[in-house]
């Protein structure tokens, strides 16, 4: 399976600041996915990062708050902008592997953000 590296693994941030999370995959993938896991909660998809086009955001998430870059087939960044304590979460990068249409998701280790 793909090896997915995320940086930072954790950070403590001040209200009103922005933080960019990096995701590096050791193989080329068409789509990369960004998830949020709020404390004690399940995973919620933020957006799908497509190489060469704008990210596709899920309902409730907007580009101004969560800008995403996808400069090539192995790398993506997610920025959490103008952070508030409600943004304290684990942010997870993911890719799909396996047969087309039946593949499973593989995840990075996550980036745990605490906003004060």
């Amino acid at each position, binding site marked *: *399976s793909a090896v*997915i590296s*995320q940086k930072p693994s954790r950070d403590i941030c001040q209200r009103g600041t922005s933080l960019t999370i990096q995701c590096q995959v050791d193989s080329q993938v068409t*789509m990369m*996915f960004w998830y949020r896991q709020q404390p004690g*909660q*399940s*995973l919620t*998809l933020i957006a*799908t990062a497509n190489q060469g086009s704008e990210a*596709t955001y*899920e309902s409730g998430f907007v580009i101004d708050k969560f800008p995403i870059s996808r400069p090539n087939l192995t790398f993506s960044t997610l920025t959490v902008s103008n952070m508030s304590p409600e943004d304290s979460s684990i942010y*997870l990068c*993911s890719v*799909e592997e396996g047969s*087309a*249409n*039946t*593949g*499973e*998701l*593989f*995840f*990075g*280790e*996550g980036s*745990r953000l605490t906003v004060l």
Partner: protein
Amino acid sequence: AQSVAQPEDQVNVAEGNPLTVKCTYSVSGNPYLFWYVQYPNRGLQFLLKYITGDNLVKGSYGFEAEFNKSQTSFHLKKPSALVSDSALYFCAVRDERYSSASKIIFGSGTRLSIRP
């Protein structure tokens, strides 16, 4: 519409005993079903999946899951629990009509605690 439910927030089992973590789903078409495990301060790890074929699916770390179409369930099982199995477990589903992994939805998670 599709949904997945994990009715138990927590499951407690003595080491050496069999364990079951429950999952039920609802999809319009045929389901693709997945189980993931999350250890503390880690990302999600893929355990197993059901796409088609044999209803009993075997996965990593000695886990298996049984697909039951009539009961719309996909319970995770292990014959003999280990203390190291203590973690957060997520069931996930995608309707086969959706071609993108972005349509995989996750249950609320079940915390499994194995006591020595």
